[in-house]
């Protein structure tokens, strides 16, 4: 199968006829759980990921007394892929969560200072959890988009005398400054392609995930896989992501 995937790419084609720089169809919907402060479902082709935001209050870290906290977790649930096993997050799940986390954190997407309730004493914690539902390749991009969509959808719960009133929501949205989006370029043979499906993913030698803000600045990158990438290829991959994201931003109509 790997050799076949490669031969198709060598003929300048893909298994499903897409161009190298094309994503599958992307669909975003909201309201996965009415208990969550925010939630979203993202489908990229047949790949499906849900993400939810829960919020809580707590004490801030010593080095950021006037800022709230962000935590991102991901579990590769055994429902999504026959190879996923139950149990605590393995390195692949941890990497997935950390790629999503850095895209959000490093872009300054959330206005953390507005999450401060009383400096040094009480701040909001935002916890995002990501669950793949169906893995048909490219969980990273689907997860990153689901997390960002869930944040866009999130509202504060009610707070009375420093206690969160669970299940009671306000209309106040979580304060966001930017919308960072993340896409992954995969290398198979000498080809760089976006949004691999499952068959293509099995042939991937290395990949580069890139998080980009509205301005086109890069805020986070992560190379995965056991093969190398030249400086020229890295640069080309970043360019592919920037171009594809300007198209995706138009399609999402979020701005």
């Amino acid at each position, binding site marked *: 199968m790997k050799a076949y995937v490669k031969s198709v790419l060598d003929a300048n084609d893909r298994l499903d006829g897409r161009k190298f720089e094309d994503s599958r169809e992307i669909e975003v919907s909201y309201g996965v759980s009415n208990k969550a402060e925010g939630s979203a479902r993202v489908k990229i082709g047949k790949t499906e990921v849900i993400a939810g935001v829960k919020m809580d209050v707590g004490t801030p870290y010593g080095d950021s007394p006037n800022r709230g906290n962000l935590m991102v977790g991901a579990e590769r649930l055994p429902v999504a892929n026959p190879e996923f096993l139950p149990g605590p997050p393995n390195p692949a799940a941890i990497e997935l969560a950390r790629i999503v986390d850095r895209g959000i954190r490093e872009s300054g997407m959330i206005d953390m200072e507005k999450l401060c309730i009383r400096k040094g004493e009480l701040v909001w914690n935002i916890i995002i959890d990501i669950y793949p539902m169906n893995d048909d390749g490219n969980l990273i991009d689907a997860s990153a988009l689901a997390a960002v969509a869930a944040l866009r959808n999130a509202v504060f719960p009610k707070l009375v005398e420093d206690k969160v009133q669970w299940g009671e929501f306000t209309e106040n949205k979580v304060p966001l400054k930017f919308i960072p989006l993340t896409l992954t370029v995969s290398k198979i043979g000498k080809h760089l392609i976006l949004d691999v499906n499952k068959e293509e993913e099995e042939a991937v030698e290395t990949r580069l995930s890139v998080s980009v803000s509205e301005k086109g600045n890069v805020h986070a990158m992560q190379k995965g896989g056991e093969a*190398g990438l030249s400086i020229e290829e890295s640069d080309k991959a970043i360019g592919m992501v920037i171009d594809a994201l300007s198209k995706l931003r138009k399609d999402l109509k979020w701005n």
Partner: protein
Amino acid sequence: MAYEKRFDGRKFDEVREMEAKIGIIERADGSAMFRTGKTIAIAAVYGPRGVFPSFLQNPKKGRLKCTYDLLSFSVTERKRPGPSRRSTEISMVTEHSLAPVLDMTKYSYAGIDLYVYITQADAGTRAAGINAASLALADAGIPMKDLITSIAVGKVSDKIAVDLDKAEEDHEDGATDLPMAMSTRTGEITLLQMDGNMTRAEIKEALEMGKKACEGIKKVQIEALKAKYNGGNKK
């Protein structure tokens, strides 16, 4: 405010003082220390040896397993011992950074265990760790196509720089960390991560700077190997 002069007086493309030493742990099959400025990493290799549990054995190729961590007292605020999400991820990317120069098909069923620990941290720990790891693998006599060299490049305030120290990472205007590793013989990047804010053009410039730095670091690595194997392993 622009960053005109580096806190420690270095040029923007200048790495910190570096030192490498081979064979620091007698029991290990291979070991090395790598220091850049005040960041110190040690690495030990055990193997090829049996893999347990046995279902992890692979008849087609050996298993490279890397464990990276900070020692509890290597950082200002004590690091709780045991794996964290950060160390789990760095262990994995360290493994991947070394894989392209190793031919694990020679070690069917067997495993090579690589342990990397930071004894003193002043930024750039994963790069120092990979530099030490690469030397420890060479010291263990594992056939390698090249030594892997690693460096953290990035941006401090408005300037592209190599080998940021902690004071630079904490610059009030913000800093971008872009750790990379390379096989300088082929020009292949084998580790690439980034956190911060840079443009595509700046990233390219930083990668080129990092490549030059890696070429210099490789000399330090080779000198260290020669210091131990002076004449002993000549062809």
